[in-house]
């Protein structure tokens, strides 16, 4: 049971035409290629493509993906629509958040808030804010403290509805 990388990473160059419609071109590169190298190549490719296309290059995304080769069995009754929301303060006075789908009941209070003294939760929060990891907010600010954590429920998308309904 392990996350295994795909043979290639993916470079997706995105475009916008005169009407505002979007399109993309996908390139692949060997997974071991450094991101800095791919960025250089992406800039060269973008320039070359600009000469071929009337659409404007509207940025690109470089993705390295790994997949689980033998996934475990999810817990009975687990539903991704049930979220654990973790909202953090950042050094620049803003907030950043992430969600954990199918948050386990054992870390929830009766009100639906997350029990912040749970050992599982303190382990997560300590790891995120203590500098063990390099995670930050989208604008590059350090994560400094947990602001709030709570359970919420999202509406199911059409694809998430039961197929045997």
């Amino acid at each position: 049971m392990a996350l295994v990388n795909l043979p290639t990473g993916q470079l997706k160059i995105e475009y916008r035409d005169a009407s505002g419609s979007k399109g993309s071109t996908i390139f692949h590169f060997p997974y071991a290629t450094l991101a800095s190298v791919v960025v250089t190549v992406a800039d060269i490719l973008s320039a070359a493509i600009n000469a071929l296309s009337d659409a404007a290059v509207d940025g690109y995304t470089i993705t390295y993906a790994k997949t689980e080769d033998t996934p475990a069995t999810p817990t009975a009754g687990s539903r991704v629509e049930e979220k654990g929301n973790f909202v953090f303060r950042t050094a620049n006075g803003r907030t950043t958040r992430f969600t954990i789908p199918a948050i386990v009941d054992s870390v929830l209070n009766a009100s639906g808030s997350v029990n912040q003294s749970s050992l599982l939760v303190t382990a997560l929060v300590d790891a995120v804010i203590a500098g063990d990891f390099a995670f930050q907010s989208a604008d590059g600010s350090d994560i400094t403290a947990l602001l709030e954590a709570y359970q919420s429920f999202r509406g199911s998308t059409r694809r998430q509805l039961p197929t045997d309904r």
Partner: protein
Amino acid sequence: MLKPSAVVELVWQDETGSTAVTALSIPSSLTVDEIDADASALASILVPLTGCVLIKQRIKYINVPETPVTASGSTPIARTGMFFFATDGISSDGLISIPAVKDSIIMTTGPGEGILIDETNADVIAFTDTVVDNGISNPFGDDFTSFVIAYLQSRV
């Protein structure tokens, strides 16, 4: 410009097969290996907090234009150039599609008139050389070693 933060996506699957993502930002100045180490360590902390199982991890570096972009012509995005490349390996060849290709690179004479992309056009040569010379591959990791043919296709 490269955004200051790359994105780590952990993809989870529940009992029904539905999936959801936990997404976090991390400095884009870090290497894939460095980000991968943090992502794996975080995932091990998250696993006991969810009834889902981890099925995928993605690391994304995102580049955005510094100023708003404007299309250089009125060609619709669906007017697509299909560029076919060959590999040295035993796997199949691969293709690269470019939307809204300019009329100026389409053949105007001969049996490929209006359909084939002109392989002798300088901009086409520049693009195909860039692909072949810079380690671009098919999805199986076989490097493209030569350009084969390109033609116009409508992809609505």
